[in-house]
């Protein structure tokens, strides 16, 4: 009986351990610096919005360009569609919290595993950052400060920033997710009506190991309420 009570007492600790991100360097405690980096992880995007980008995806030396249409509703609901030169659908994906990413349309030969894997990872990495109150473990390795988050699907996501950031126009950092390293660069910031912070109009993400590079130029960003049904239909 005592043993089972002890187990019950330990259960929250065990669960806490399971749902906390892992430390990946020396603990780092400069709260001002950490707050600054957390704000940057949050990004400038509002809680719900529609966005349209022109995207060029390079994969093993081949390029594939399309217009991307994105709906996002935090926390965790999104829908992304890609359209070709003459308006035809290339693919459409949707995700809601607690459910796997769904492929809604895939008329061409693009592999489903690629869409639900790297393509969905890129959408979440760029447009659905961890929540402001998400548990984070901050550490330091060399000249980098690492913010480690644990997504609800169990994926550990690490944002690596150079501790000393120059006064550059572009913002660079690295994200480790699902065993892949993505180098992210945001630049060409501009004000958008209804959005508090300036938004990057040019985004470059590169996974050198997978020879994958995404370049996205913002065409339109509209903050506003989005009906739930858009993510389920």
């Amino acid at each position, binding site marked *: 009986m005592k043993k089972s009570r002890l187990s019950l007492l330990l259960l929250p600790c065990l669960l806490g351990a399971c749902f906390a991100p892992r430390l990946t360097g020396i603990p780092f405690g400069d709260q001002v610096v950490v707050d600054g980096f957390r704000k940057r992880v949050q990004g400038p995007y509002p809680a719900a919005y529609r966005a349209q980008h022109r995207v060029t995806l390079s994969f093993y030396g081949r390029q594939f*360009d399309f217009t991307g249409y994105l*709906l996002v509703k935090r926390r965790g609901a999104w829908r992304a*569609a890609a359209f070709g*030169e*003459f308006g035809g*659908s290339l693919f459409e994906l949707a995700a809601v919290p607690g459910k796997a990413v769904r492929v809604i*349309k895939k008329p061409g*030969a693009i592999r489903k595993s690629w869409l639900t894997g790297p393509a969905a990872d890129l959408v979440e990495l760029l447009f659905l950052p961890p929540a402001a109150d998400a548990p984070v473990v901050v550490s330091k390795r060399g000249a980098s400060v690492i913010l480690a988050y644990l997504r609800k699907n169990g994926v550990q996501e690490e944002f690596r920033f150079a501790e000393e950031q120059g006064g550059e126009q572009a913002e660079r950092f690295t994200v480790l997710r699902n065993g892949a390293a993505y180098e992210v660069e945001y630049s060409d910031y501009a004000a958008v009506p209804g959005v508090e912070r300036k938004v990057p109009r040019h985004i470059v993400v590169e996974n050198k190991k997978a020879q994958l590079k995404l370049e996205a130029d913002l065409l339109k960003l509209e903050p506003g309420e989005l009906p739930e049904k858009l993510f389920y239909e």
Partner: protein
Amino acid sequence: MKKIFLLPLLALAGLFPAWTAHAADSSVSVRFSPAQQKEFLGKLEGNLKASRTLQARFVQEKHLLLFQDVLTSSGTFAFSVPSSLRWEITSPFHSLLIMNGRELAKYDYIKGQPRRLKLPVADALFEVFGQIAGLHQGKFSEQAGKYELAVYSGEPARLVLVPKNKKMRQFIPAIEMKFTPALDSVSSVRIREGESDYTLISFEDVRLNPELPAGLFAPEQK
């Protein structure tokens, strides 16, 4: 009686305008008989073939019914017989597609400078471009293997192409083409997708047989 109750629901769902537009279309549109269709297509083919070159502006609207949104782009289009085509989007982004005989080139623009893309699916794009070139020359018999053709009356008449391939029909149920009243060029193309979405490409300022600048269809752009 049930239909009366359904009407407000359709209106609330935002479907009413689309439904009434479709109904209005159908009420004035009658499918041509095989003999009328043959005569119409023959005349159209003769007129379209008379243009050795063509240049126009286009506006492309992608209508997304579920998202209640329209994505608009615009640019210029040029064609020269037998198979040179240039499709340049200038707004809201810049991209260029060129077909010159058997060569196909696609560019995007980085800070105003063209970058030639290495295409992973050049063959598919080449086929689409080939079909566009063929349709602008009135080569409808070439399409008859892949599409069921039907002409509907109206001002102007419209040509509807329905893919014969069942899988393709699932994604593109029909392509509708409208022509100028003189039947000498295409005025719009509507590509239906699924049950509701569609892309409408409207051509404006169409110039027939213009003298086109040398190098317009050169696959190497500087």
